[in-house]
Every structure is written in C-alpha cells, then in structure tokens.
C-alpha cells in the first residue's frame, strides 16, 4: 500500500465552452480562447475542439457533436488532473450534469419536481421516486471507457451511492398512502418505506452500474455518500445499502462523506468490510495556522475517533477547502498531513485529498489547490523520511 497516495474526490467545474456548447448558448471569442489556452497549457492537440466550437457558433450541434464536446471536456480534465501530479485521477465528472441530477435522470422511476436550496444561493433540482427505480442502461460506462483509454494514471470512479440518491429524492412511491400524522404507527410506516426505497436503489441502480464498471476494468470505485449522517439513526441503513451495492464484487471500494458530523458514523461503519477507505472533508473546519498539534489542527479532531475505534481502513484526508478560493500553501497542507499521520500512526493509512469535488472553484483555483496538495504531500513525505 502506497503511503500518502494523493487523489481527487470527483468533480471539477466545467469550462465555459463546455457549458455553452451543451446548453446551446452562443459561444464567444473568450470561450474559444479559454479552450486554446487550457489546451496549450495541458499539451493537448486541441484543433479538433476548436473546429467543433466554431461550428457551434454557426449552427446547432447534433446530439453526437454535443457528446463529442463532453468527451473533449473529459480529455481536458484528465490531463489537468494528471498535470497537477495527483497519483489517482478521474475525468472531473465532465460528462455528468451533477452528482444527483445525472444518475436520477438516467434512471427509470424518477420525475423531477423542482428546485430546492442547498445553501446560500446554491440549489439543486430534486426528483421524486414515482415507481420502483430501474436502470435504463449503465450510466457511467461510456465515460469510464473513455477515461480508461485516455488516462495515463490509475483511475478511481466516483459514483453517487444509494443512500444519498434516496435521501435527496422525495418518495412518492414507497410511502404513498402512509399519511398517518402524529403517531408511532405513521413513523414506523415511513421508516419501512424508506428502507425499501434505499435498498431498491442499491440493488437496482448502484450494483448493476458497479458490475459493468468492474467488467470494463474499473479497479477502484468511490461511493459518494454525503447524506450519510443526515439521519443519524439511519447510518445502519447506509451500511446495509453499501454492502448490497458491493458485496461479492472484486474491486476496491471507498466511501466519500463530507460536511457531516462524523461521530454519528460510529460504531456502524466498523462493520463495512467492503470499504477500504473513508474519504472525508476536514479542511473546511480547520484553522489555516501552521502546526502539527491538536490546538492548531482543530478540523482534524475526529481522526482520534478512527484511532480509538482501531479503524484499519485508509482515510482520505481532506487537506484543501473546496468552498474557498484561498490557495492553501504547501506547508499548511504538509502540516495537515503530518498531523493526520501522527494521529493515525501510519502514513500508509493517509491519502491526501481535497475535501470534496472542486466543482465550485474555477479551473485556475482548482489547479493551484491540487498542485499544492501534491507539493504538500511531497513535503510531508520528505519530512518523514
């Protein structure tokens, strides 16, 4: 097992040419300049993309053309992530709309109901489950094959997990008719409906997706479950869904959880035999002062719980904040890593990562953050050698 294996979590933002071309909006000169500049910076022969974008300026792109734009976007993201020096990468989820919208809109049994707020002026479109969820066709397979064929570094495929997909959806199918208000019975009805919903998503959507990815050569799949601690009493249900999604499949699995109260994960996650890494967000809650002690590294306090519970998994340790343009300097990242190593007692159990996907940052900011993450990890490795 490599010590301090660096990896990203999933998403990157989409460059303006990708957004506008897919949405059918007018592309300006600045969009083509961005495509050229990033292409040159990443060493990509980009003329084919420019031709495509110039055509988009003149006419509406066909479905096939738009798919090609998305593949270009994947190609750029793969090279960008590789160039930052990360050990394990993916394609920045460039062929997906978003971690919830994409899987739900590529599955049967859901209808979108409208927009709800996540925080500030950030929103997401929320769907309702209206029939038993079913997979139309594996929705990550094409992007994985493309990434596999174009990446030079090892891949980790991020995939939104069953618990989160269910939790972020309304349930108009399993709980239909269970309207009892103000009664234990009503609550029990809702809980039973909830369990059936989550496990059907695991068995009918997530597992078949994973099976096809593994058949196509995926060796590491990260199951994203940011909703896990939303209902602390349902952490056992998340564990059950994780097992239902992964059991018996020959692949390395990790779980990404963020912006949550991680204390609620214990003790249930201790039984997750199929999970080799918990990738968690920490930097968002940490100070930016240098130092390798608990007084300074306040955001990493929860690591002691993993130590106390003798969790033998690796921890993906979030060392850069994805909700801020502050570029963490390498020495701050180094200290966060060294502190994690000190608490967990083994550098092989620490994988430096961003807190979460970087989709809310510009590519310039994301590139700098990830490059510094790698530099910080190298500094940490040197100081331990």
């Amino acid at each position, binding site marked *: 097992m490599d010590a301090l294996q660096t990896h990203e979590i999933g998403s990157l933002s989409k460059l303006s040419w990708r957004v506008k071309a897919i949405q059918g909006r007018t592309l300006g000169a600045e969009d083509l300049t961005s495509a050229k500049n990033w292409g040159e910076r990443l060493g990509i022969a980009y003329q084919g993309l420019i031709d495509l974008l110039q055509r988009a300026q003149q006419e509406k792109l066909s479905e096939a053309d738009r798919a090609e734009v998305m593949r270009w976007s994947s190609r750029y993201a793969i090279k960008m992530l590789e160039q930052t020096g990360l050990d394990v990468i993916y394609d920045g989820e460039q062929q997906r709309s978003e971690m919830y919208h994409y899987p739900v809109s590529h599955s049967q049994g859901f209808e979108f*109901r409208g927009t709800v707020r996540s925080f500030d*002026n950030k929103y997401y479109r929320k769907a309702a489950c209206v029939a038993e969820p079913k997979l139309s066709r594996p929705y990550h397979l094409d992007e994985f094959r493309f990434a596999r064929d174009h990446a030079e570094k090892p891949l980790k495929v991020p995939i939104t997990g069953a618990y989160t997909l269910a939790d972020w959806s*309304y349930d108009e199918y399993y709980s239909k008719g269970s309207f009892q*208000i*103000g*009664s234990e019975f009503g609550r029990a009805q809702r809980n039973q409906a909830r369990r059936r919903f989550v496990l059907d998503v695991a068995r009918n959507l997530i597992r078949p997706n994973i099976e096809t990815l593994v058949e196509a050569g995926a060796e590491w799949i990260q199951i994203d479950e940011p909703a896990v601690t*939303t209902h602390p009493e349902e952490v056992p249900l998340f564990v059950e869904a994780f097992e239902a999604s992964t059991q018996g499949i020959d692949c390395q699995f990790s779980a990404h959880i963020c912006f949550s109260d991680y204390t609620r994960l214990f003790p249930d996650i201790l039984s997750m035999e199929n999970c080799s890494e918990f990738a968690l967000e920490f930097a968002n809650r940490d100070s930016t002062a240098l130092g390798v002690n608990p007084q300074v590294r306040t955001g990493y306090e929860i690591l002691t719980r993993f130590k106390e519970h003798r969790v033998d998994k690796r921890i993906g340790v979030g060392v850069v904040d994805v909700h801020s343009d502050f570029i963490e300097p390498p020495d701050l990242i180094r200290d966060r890593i060294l502190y994690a190593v000190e608490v967990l007692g083994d550098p092989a159990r620490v994988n430096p990562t961003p807190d979460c996907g970087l989709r809310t940052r510009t590519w310039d900011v994301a590139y700098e953050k990830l490059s510094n993450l790698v530099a910080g990890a190298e500094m940490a490795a040197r100081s331990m050698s």
Partner: protein
Amino acid sequence: MTQVKAFLNGIYPRSEPLVSITRDYDRGRTGEQELKQGFQQDLEALIDLQVSSGLDYLSDGMLNWQDLYHPIVGMAEGLKAGPLERSFNTNTFYRQPIVAGNVRLQRSDDVDSEFFHRDGSQETLWKAVLPSPYLFSRVAANEFYHDENELMMAFTTELLKPLTQRLVERGISFIQLNEPYLVSHKPRLQDVKLFQEAIEAFTKDLNARVCIHTHFGDAEPIMEHLLDFEVDAIGIDFLETDLDSLTGYDFEMELVCGCVNSRSSLIEDEEVVYAFAHRTIEQLNPPICYLTTNTGLEFVPEEIARNKVRLLGRVAERLRTGG
C-alpha cells in the same frame, strides 16, 4: 373553545424565476436592481398567497435569508460567519456562527429594511421567526464565552431581545423561536432550566406573542418542562411526535400544530389533516391552535409549498366553521 388559526412556519422556498435570478446574480450575469425586483415579486406573490389562503398571521417567508443565522450574524458585533454545517437531518447547510467577542446587536438600522419585510397595514398581523437562544448557543462555535449557557444568556439579552423589540416596534406581533436542538439532542436538566431563565428574560415586558417551536424531533420527552416556560405557545412537529403521548399533559398553552409535512412532495389528503387537527384540538384542548407545517417549507419547490399553504388554509377554515 379552541380558536383555530393558521400561518407559515419558517423559511419559504424561492420561486423558480427567483432561483434563476439569484444564480445569475452570483455569476455576475444580472445586477442588483433585477435581484431586488425578483425578491419583491416573490414577496408580493407570497403575501397574496397567504391572504388568499386565509392565514391569520403573515410572514415575509424569510426569502432573502441564507439560513436561520446568517442575517443575524451580519447584524451583530462579536459574531462572524464560519464554515458550512449541515442543518440537522436535512440536505440544507448553514454558515456556522462563530462567537469571537461580546455579542451585541449592532446594525439595528437595517433590521427591518433588509431582513424583515411587512407592508404598512396596521390591521394585518405579522410574525417573524428567529433562532431560539438554546439552539443558537449549541450550533454556534463559541470561542469567547465561558460556556454555551453564558453565550445563550448573552445572545438572549444583548442580541435577540433588542432585535425583537425593534421588530415589535415595527408591528410584528408573533415571534416564533425555532428550537430543533432541544428535541434532537437530549438536554441536561440544568441546561433546560437555564434556557427557561433565558426565555423569561426574553419575554419580560415584550409586547408580542412568543412561541417556542420544536421540530426535527419528538417533543414529548421535553414537554413537561416546556409547559412551564414563560411563553404563549409551544410548537410541535407531529411528524415526529405521537399525539397520544401528550394526552396526559395539561395543555393550557397555545399550540402550534405542525401537521403538514414540509419535507414531502406529496400533498397531504385534506381529510387526513382535518381529522388529525380535529383530534388534536379535542385531545389537548389548547386555547388557540395554530395550524402550520412541521418546519419551514424551504425543503420543497415553491409550487408544492404553495399547495401546502392552501391546504393549511382550507383545513383551518373547515375547523373554524365546524367541518
């Protein structure tokens, strides 16, 4: 004889057009004027909805509040906005208030201009929703006061009360203090007593009805204490609380009855809500029963929220007129 009234609970969702405007504003694609206009249109539509649905107290729906704490942090000394934290068992996040110094209301001039909207009519009853002192002291990162309870009292007397007094001067007559923490994290008895003292300090000489609205948890375990609080009304989330578990309590207080699910896209069957509200009134016999959703409607798209508000109005009217 129980009087039946109805009102909105907390933050109301923005319409799809306003969602687009706020997104565009954040991305620099639209300006301040369009943003203000967007909020104003939503506000007017929401007021119309409440009036046409027959609600008794009107609310501005807190349309421009980012979360329950953020505007208050901006009005105060000693507080700053911190990292994103999950808001209880939801997929909604808030900026955690960080307490870095003496807490005090600072910008009282924009209390009513920016964050509390009401029209000039004196005949209309208005309500406002604020975080309870106990909730605030538990979700804030306290880097200044000796402990959470000291923060709770300072927040109450130096920030919450002067802010509320300002609102009452402006004609807001019902103050709902949201309190999910008390029913979702088992409290220590001594903390409950200190919370009670904070509420006494808050309500003393305050010329408004005050409600502590519990939600996201079962209110029964804390009910015997809450009924001793110096408030006019207690709010209960009946998606989490068993009505039959409350029948042993002497419910002389007004009841805020959270009986419509603000987190479900399904519109409740009117007969079921009516029957439940009717049974609640019969079993608890409060002097006033305010029908509302169990929490703010921010968890559903605006179109669904609108239908739930209309449902509340219809059920309240049927209860008032005897079916």
